[in-house]
């Protein structure tokens, strides 16, 4: 029975590649959506979480607070570029202040904070109270907040995921 279903899926994928791609995309989104919850602050650790971040950015009404000004806009879909608010910071403290302003504003439903390229020393120097404050603001405004960090820095995160190391990536010959 399983073999028949597998064969049927393969046949459908060959005949209707666009429909299959759409359903795969929907499945991927259904996998990542539970990670972002309204009113919750979650942390995603690991340096190779870029794919996940790009998927979150595809959400409408989203802001990326880029603590190291590291986003490559050419890597984003045109639709994502159109509705993404990009906040380019130079320090972790600037990123925290920017997040504070956006969460108090309450107009955006998703706020992503990318701290991956900031030095660990700078991240550990942030007082833990800032994360509590951001968590409270997220709860009050109903925004989903995801912090992308190189290692665990948010003590009060409602959820934490670690992106697997995907390297060495397949290099083109």
């Amino acid at each position, binding site marked *: 029975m399983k073999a028949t279903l597998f064969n049927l899926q393969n046949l459908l994928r060959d005949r209707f590649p666009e429909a299959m791609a759409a359903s795969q995309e929907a499945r991927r989104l259904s996998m990542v959506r539970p990670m972002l919850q309204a009113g919750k602050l979650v942390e995603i650790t690991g340096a190779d979480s870029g794919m996940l971040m790009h998927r979150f950015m595809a959400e409408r009404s989203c802001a990326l607070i880029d603590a*190291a000004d590291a986003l490559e806009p050419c890597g984003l879909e045109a639709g994502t570029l159109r509705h993404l608010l990009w906040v380019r910071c130079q320090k972790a403290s600037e990123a925290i202040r920017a997040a504070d302003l956006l969460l108090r504003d309450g107009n955006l439903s998703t706020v992503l904070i990318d701290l991956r390229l900031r030095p660990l020393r700078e991240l550990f120097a942030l007082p833990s109270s800032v994360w509590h404050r951001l968590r409270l603001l997220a709860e009050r405004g109903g925004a989903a907040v995801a912090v992308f960090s190189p290692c665990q820095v948010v003590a009060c995160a409602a959820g934490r995921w670690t992106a697997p190391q995907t390297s060495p990536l397949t290099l083109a010959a």
Partner: protein
Amino acid sequence: MFAAWWLPRFVLQALRVLARDRVAVLEAQALKAEDARLLCVSETAEREGVQVGMTSSQAQARCPRLRLLYRDEKAEQELQQRLLMAVESWTPDYEATQPGLCVLDLSRRRMNEPWSDLGMLMHRDATALAMETRIGLADKADLAVLAAHVADPVRVIRDGKEALRELPMNILCRNPELMRLLHLWGVRTLGQFTALPRAEIARRLGAEGLALHDLARGGKERLLRLVRPIQLFREESEIESPIECLEPLMHLLRGMLGRLCARLAEAWRVAGRLLLELRFDDRSTHERDLRVAEPSRDEAVLGRLLETALEGVKATAPVVFVSLEIVPVRAAASQGGLFDQGLRDPNRFAETLSALEALLGKGRVGRAELLPSRRVDAFRVVNFLEASTPSIEHSPGGPPLQRFRPPRPARLVWQDWQPVTLHVDRETKPLIAASGPWFLSGEWWDTQQAWQHEIWDATTDDGALYRLVREHEVWRVEGRYG
């Protein structure tokens, strides 16, 4: 009742040419003066055979003493303004039909005097302002225009059909080709033209012929395109005691906003944009163009927008001049943006964006728009609330790249044409795999801007994949994938 004011030979009048002068006006500066065509001809020159549309050499052959002038648009605008001012003293409801021609709607005016006397009074007014006018009065606007073209200096047409019958065709038709055709048909007067069957005119001359036919019969009832003065919502203030901090400046601006918002309310408008100009004691200036995300005339909302925008401003000298202008929009027309509707409070969001810009600097908050180039960082950051422009076609693919801005200087050790070690940030990283080179170049047509990159992707022994770029013989790590 309608009155038409017509300034014959408007272009010549603008140049203040005397009627007895032999003068012709050329359209514009042609490459060769003899190729330029005549736009307007004085009466004296016309009597000697010079006609509009001739080249200057043809005209001078007929009238050797002809003086040629070039058209002066600025003078024409001044004369038109003078004409509008004169007609405005008679009625607020008037149409600027074309340069040198205005139609006045006198239906709201109490008429105690005969029409011809009224026309003479109008002519006297125009003469006092140094304008030579012809005044036509009639029941319909188009009929009044025709009357003005045959007036000397005033003409009243009450029974349109009868009065128009003997008028020449050239007062109606400005198209020389059509005039030539009508001349070939033997049509000289409006009466002869209206005698032609309408269906046949439509078949032979099309819509233009039908429009002329209607005009020749006295024109249809039509609404005038009334001239309404442009209302400027602007306040400015020269400050006697220069302002050095935000608090007194905001006090001044709130006063201005209060007055401007009251005027907006009278005009049933809301503020779409705020244009602020500050001049400082050291002659420097600061200008801001603030878009109101959700157009409003709420003083508090607009005041907060101004205050947030000014919080980040630093100046080396006190403020001596303030100017605030509101660009008005209709409230209903401002709700077009889909994104504006999606925000809970667009005005608050605009304030937040201003606060973020004040915190991080200009160009650091907004939407990224790609530029048509393959060069690194070929993008610009635009205001998030501005309407987005169609994006450049691009095909994102591969793993995401985290860019190092600025790129980190690096040194590579090579073995058998492959990089084996990467020295970056005082660290040495052995490379376990490398792929490349890929060459990218652009703007080769410009020696100053031309660029050429050699790109490698390399995996270090800790599993990280980097993008390495060589430009001008210098290696740099441009980013890390992941």
